[in-house]
């Protein structure tokens, strides 16, 4: 089939790195998105303002710029922090910078998805919790979040696919994921089309796996619900 010139294992290692990066950024993004959505739907105007600022500013700036800013822009800040901690050579690794940048971007979009889902939970459920004397935290943890999850899942799935494709951007700061590994293979083999095509096929198969996984997650989350017929 396709001659990989012995770069197969390197590409496999790159794929593993891409998956790790995507999952770590997903966790950070989900936390940020949930925080953003709770801030945007809260009753305090300052939190609403901060949440709105976060989702607007982050969504208006290219992901690539965030990756570069996270990596090159934090050098001085990290050095200052390192000197204070007594380790002057402290710096963000490309992996950490990638997780922070992609998580930040995912979180900004997830803020909107979570907000929509939060608003879709009937207010009566919250009031019922209040009437039962549950605390606010308990109402969120026991009543609102489990129901919101089901409605947020399709939107989050789309965002995860976008996130997975955005991991390719982290190759620009030198993280050895699929793209970077293919670039190395291209320099050695002088066959750019072959290796970038292989990279594209790997991303495509990752997307397909994610699609199948999401399908099952959605089925799991919406069990007991009849699909609405419009």
């Amino acid at each position, binding site marked *: 089939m396709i001659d990989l010139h012995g770069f197969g294992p390197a590409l496999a290692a790159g794929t593993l790195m891409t998956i790790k990066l995507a999952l770590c950024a997903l966790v950070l993004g989900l936390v940020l998105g949930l925080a953003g959505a709770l801030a945007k739907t809260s009753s305090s105007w300052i939190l609403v303002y901060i949440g709105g600022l976060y989702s607007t500013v982050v969504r208006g700036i290219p992901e*690539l710029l965030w990756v570069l800013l996270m990596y090159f822009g934090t050098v001085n800040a990290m050095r200052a922090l390192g000197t204070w901690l007594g380790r002057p050579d402290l710096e963000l690794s490309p992996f950490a910078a990638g997780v922070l940048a992609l998580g930040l971007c995912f979180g900004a979009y997830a803020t909107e998805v979570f907000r929509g889902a939060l608003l879709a939970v009937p207010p009566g459920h919250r009031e019922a919790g209040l009437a039962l004397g549950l605390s606010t935290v308990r109402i969120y943890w026991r009543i609102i979040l489990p129901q919101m999850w089901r409605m947020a899942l399709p939107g989050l799935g789309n965002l995860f696919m976008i996130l997975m494709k955005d991991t390719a951007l982290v190759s620009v700061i030198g993280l050895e994921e699929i793209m970077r590994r293919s670039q190395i293979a291209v320099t050695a083999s002088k066959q750019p*089309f072959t290796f970038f095509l292989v990279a594209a096929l790997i*991303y495509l198969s990752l997307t397909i796996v994610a699609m199948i996984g999401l399908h099952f997650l959605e089925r799991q989350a919406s069990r007991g619900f009849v699909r609405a017929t419009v």
Partner: protein
Amino acid sequence: MQWDVILQALPKLLQGVVLTLELVALSCIAGLIFAIPMGIARASTRWYVRSLPYGYIFLFRGTPLLVQLFLVYYGLAQFEAVRQGPLWPYLRDPFWCAVITMTMHTTAYIAEIVRGALQAVPAGEIEAARALGMSKTQTLLFITLPRAIRIGLPAYSNEVILMLKGSALASTVTLLELTGMARTIIARTYLPVEIFFAAGVLYLLIAYVLVLGFKLLEKVLRVDTGQLGR
């Protein structure tokens, strides 16, 4: 924050803005032109008409823009036939490579928007047109498409903003658009925070102007009154 550095870099950054705008405008307009027939074919009820656009859309939405860009810019040079071919002066130029890739990428997304918009046109309106004796082509041109444009416009404006952010990737194929220009200036001044901050603000400004422009267009096309059915 060294404001004088930002002020000094501003003329160069504005040059980058011009190139960014050229990339976005060319690819979004060309993408729309290609996407309309593709979206119509994608919405067809015949499987053999539907399957080819479906495959194209799946391939281009399932792989990262960066991979596609590298495939076109670095990959095509692998083939002797391309290098001898009549299109080589264009395929050698990073600007045209970026425009071609971004156009192909955004065509896939816009075609999906067109399909969604076409299928959202109320069936009753199409039936009314048919009942009035309009041919299938007339119905498509005078009833379905004008309605679909109004339905799809908000989604199209989202896609344009996404392409604005995608255009940052053109910096990886040596183009000096806004991100590329910022990186060049940083290589000389070693002030990543200031310059990336300025570039980010410029991106936000462009996005803001674009959003305002589309709001105006929606007003001109009376998108809201159309939706309400008057």
